């Protein structure tokens, strides 16, 4: 092993053998935003063999406050995040093979990527994609590490198929209307704690030290100085449709995915959730108003506008994104606001 990893191999649970294992593994990282860029940097520095990064977005000025790797030049060049991450990671460690995929992560687009993957790291910004990852993990018996953050709050949980409960056991339904970074803001230290936990779990899984894997669901709030690691041993459900005795992997079916359609001749994309939601439009309007959106509303819909982009949101969760024909951009906007 070379000098580069000397301080990592000195750490006994890794050692030279662990470093060789890390070097031989392939990680799939879904998302190259705040959690994603920091995870990509970590894995590159740690000497992962191959890293595939999937992201649908490009670098914007408002990302620089918390998204590692990216620079002002990337913003000027409007680089896709996956490409920008690859470029910067190459400067850090030429030994690592990095594959950048600029695309929307869905059941259909992600499943073909799983061949030879040892671990999936969640760096997405919405529960729909996480439930897709959760089902893919169970179907293909690949561990994944959930991570999420908003404001000063973060949480993380490691899912090992056949051992731990899965995210569907814990959440049962996709939570309705949580806070997102676009409504509650986000401070960079909250990102870092989540990433650090994901990174430590990743190292354990990559060196196959499964006894060391964290059992609990960890939550913290750095501003309110709260921390809890919640045991989940009894939460595994035999009838869970994702990890139970007769799994159907419900989130892999197209009916359970958010739909986007370009509305002909109108420069508008319609986004439709898989099942009708019951949004609290007044609360959402207040949150978005506090977040710098211009909000107009009536009892049936909200119209919100910011930086030239306008979205109309109906109570059942359907939305029209005006001024674009890019379905993936429209879906990103929608999920950034609605979680």
């Amino acid at each position, binding site marked *: 092993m070379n000098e580069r990893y000397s301080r990592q191999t000195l750490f006994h649970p890794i050692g030279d053998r662990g470093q060789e294992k890390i070097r031989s593994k392939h990680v799939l990282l879904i998302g190259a935003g705040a959690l994603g860029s920091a995870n990509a940097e970590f894995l590159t520095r740690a000497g992962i063999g191959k890293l595939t990064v999937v992201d649908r977005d490009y670098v914007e000025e408002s990302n620089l406050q918390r998204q590692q790797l990216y620079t002002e030049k990337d913003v000027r060049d409007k680089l896709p995040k996956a490409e920008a991450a690859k470029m910067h990671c190459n400067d850090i460690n030429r030994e690592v093979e990095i594959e950048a995929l600029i695309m929307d992560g869905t059941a259909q687009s992600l499943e073909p990527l799983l061949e030879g993957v040892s671990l999936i790291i*969640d760096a997405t910004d919405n529960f729909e994609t*996480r439930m897709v990852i959760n089902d893919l993990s169970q179907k293909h018996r690949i561990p994944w590490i959930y991570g999420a953050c*908003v404001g000063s709050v973060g949480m993380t949980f490691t899912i090992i198929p056949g051992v731990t409960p899965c995210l569907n056991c814990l959440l049962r339904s996709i*939570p309705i209307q949580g806070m997102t970074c676009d409504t*509650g803001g986000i401070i960079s230290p909250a990102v870092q704690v989540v990433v650090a936990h994901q990174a430590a779990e990743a190292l354990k899984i990559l060196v196959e030290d499964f006894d060391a894997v964290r059992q609990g669901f960890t939550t913290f*709030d750095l501003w309110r100085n709260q921390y809890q*690691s*919640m045991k989940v041993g*009894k939460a595994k459900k035999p009838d869970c449709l994702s990890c139970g005795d007769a799994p159907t992997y419900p989130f892999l079916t197209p009916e359970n995915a958010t739909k986007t359609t370009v509305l002909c001749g109108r420069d508008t994309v319609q986004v439709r959730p898989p099942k009708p939601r019951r949004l609290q439009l007044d609360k959402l309007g207040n949150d978005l108003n506090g977040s710098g959106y211009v909000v107009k509303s009536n009892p049936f819909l909200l119209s919100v506008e910011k930086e030239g982009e306008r979205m109309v949101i109906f109570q059942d969760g359907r939305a029209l994104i005006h001024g674009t024909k890019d379905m993936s951009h429209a879906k990103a906007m929608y999920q950034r606001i609605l979680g």
Partner: protein
Amino acid sequence: MVKVLFFAHLKDEAGQEEISIEGNGFTVAQVKDKIAADLGIATLDSVMTAVNEEFANDETIVSEGDTVAFIPPVSGG
């Protein structure tokens, strides 16, 4: 006495980090309803619950001396 802890923005909504409630043999769902009513917290529907630092659901029974924590899941990244 059952101790109830509020995590993240629930702490602000509740106006305090922890409260005690009287009683025994409630379900988590009943605790949620009582607290939502008493403290005027709108949404404990999609909140995760831990009882004595162990994952719980709406049907879990809460007994004297237990600590119930409400943790709102987040989706950002």
